[in-house]
């Protein structure tokens, strides 16, 4: 484990500061580990329950460590329940929302970052406002709207609505990121005859890796876990995503905790792995520029 933050190599936005400390901070290490243990403990309990045999969960005496291990809790959801379908639908929705979100957020963020025009504040405020609403609040109106436009049981429509509620965040992050890229670089390209669009694609975007990663991750995670909208407008069992499928283990007559937690573990893994992989970029992505 080196002392340098190895996640800094591509950062050209500001002068690099190597935080090379002569020795490791042991106090911080202790505190850090305590924090980590505290955070992961609940999920470890969840995992322990997921490997317990179903009949053991409530058999006294009450216990935390499994007496026997039963991995069928992880396989039965795939064989006896339509888990493959759930996963497939969640992947479609999440990827779709991420791609669509980035596609429309990038140009908008660029414009907000580079230009000062009349509606700038209005648009920013509107975007902030959408963060204050959630599909749960507006569900009745959304259903009516979907029905009017014939969009029920349509994964594309769900993708679009997910994007509508989360794109604001992507725009706000990306506009910060773009703003922190020195305009001089683009100016140089203009002189050479490049168009705005060209510089956006060939210069600005490559420099915004962390910001894009952060925005993309948010869009993905939000869409992957979205529940209320999918529940209401997707009634076709072939189109059920994982968030709803999972809830069926819980909402039923007798909660099937072992299947629920096992499926929860499997369902959370994709997002967690993505987050971990891109974790080093998260910090830079969140606030690449100064907050105004």
């Amino acid at each position, binding site marked *: 484990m080196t002392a340098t933050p190895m996640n800094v190599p591509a950062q050209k936005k500001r002068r690099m500061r190597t935080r090379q400390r002569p020795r490791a901070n042991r106090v911080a290490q202790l505190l850090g580990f305590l924090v980590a243990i505290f955070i992961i403990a609940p999920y470890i309990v969840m995992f322990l329950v997921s490997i317990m045999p179903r009949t053991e969960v409530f058999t006294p005496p*009450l216990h935390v460590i499994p007496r026997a291990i039963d991995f069928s809790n992880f396989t039965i959801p795939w064989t006896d329940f339509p888990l493959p379908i759930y996963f497939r639908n969640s992947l479609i929705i999440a990827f779709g929302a991420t791609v669509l979100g980035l596609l429309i957020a990038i140009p908008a963020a660029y414009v907000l970052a580079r230009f000062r025009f009349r509606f700038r504040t209005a648009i920013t405020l509107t975007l902030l406002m959408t963060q204050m609403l959630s599909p749960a609040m507006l569900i009745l109106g959304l259903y009516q*709207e979907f029905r009017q436009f014939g969009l029920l049981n349509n994964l594309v429509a769900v993708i679009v609505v997910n994007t509508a509620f989360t794109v604001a965040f992507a725009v706000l992050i990306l506009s910060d990121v773009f703003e922190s890229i020195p305009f001089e670089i683009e100016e140089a390209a203009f002189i050479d005859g490049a168009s705005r669009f060209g510089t956006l694609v060939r210069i600005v975007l490559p420099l915004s890796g962390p910001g894009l990663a952060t925005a993309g991750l948010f869009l993905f995670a939000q869409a992957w876990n979205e529940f209320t909208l999918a529940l209401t407008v997707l009634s076709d069992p072939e189109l059920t995503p994982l968030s709803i499928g999972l809830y069926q283990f819980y909402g039923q007559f007798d909660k099937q905790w072992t299947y629920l937690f096992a499926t929860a573990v499997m369902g959370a893994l994709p997002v967690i792995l993505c987050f971990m992989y891109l974790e080093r970029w998260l910090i830079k*992505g969140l606030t690449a520029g100064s907050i105004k």
Partner: protein
Amino acid sequence: MNQSLQRRAYALWALPVVVLVLVFVAYPLGLLIVSSFSSLSFSGQVTGWAGWDNYQALLIDPALPNVLRNTAGWTVGVVAGTLLISIGVAIVLNENFPGRRVVRWILVIPWATSLIITSLVFAWLFDSRLGTINVIGMSAGILSDPIAFLGAGQTAKLILIFVGIFVSVPFTTYLLLSGLQGIPAEYYEAASIDGANRIRRFRYITLPLLRPFIQLAGLLNAIYVFNSFPIIWILTRGGPANDTQTIITYMYKMAFSTDETGKAAALGTGGFFLLLLLGSAYWITLRRSNRITG
């Protein structure tokens, strides 16, 4: 070339976002507001104009003062707790130590996991009899009777705030960590040469430079927490006896459990405008104070 025309053309790049938001957020919001002023049949069909009737019914609801108080307490509790803890965790994670990477990875888990799953895990942990905390406490001899964590008003509120903080700390920590990493090391070195100890360095360098990040985190957290639904719904349903009912859970209860859709729409609309008002006021004062102090 006509500069302003070109500029306006580029404004079109923002059009897809605006259109998307108008169609899928503004329109249903409009329907919500209209519903709040309509009289609704038992099954929620619009049967006419009700003027302020729904709002009046809402204002005389005996549960309303409780709901508003709970919402305020919940939001302030979670945001304040999150900020305090996140600053600490961010500072720790800003230091170098072996295993820092693993800690940062683990910190990501609550953030990446669906809120519903996390709430279910805590429901399992805090169940008043079969919950893990009680089981461990009893078998370790610490507890003689299981604690009904979620069954009594005061403890239920604390547990909910705890869970709210738990799920908000990762995002806020990362946000503050980015801010910390942006503070030049030279400042600290200069300060320690001048004889400032850790506390002074923190007060006069870290905090001021971190302030914009703290303010942003505070605002974003406040918005999310105000509207947060799954945690309360899964752990206490707003109980016992409306002790933990917030605006959004009460709205949901009225809309879907007790068929009072008119009042629900009124509460939803009212809640939205309240949040809008507070959020805008906060944002505007932020910008003004930042401009003054630079």
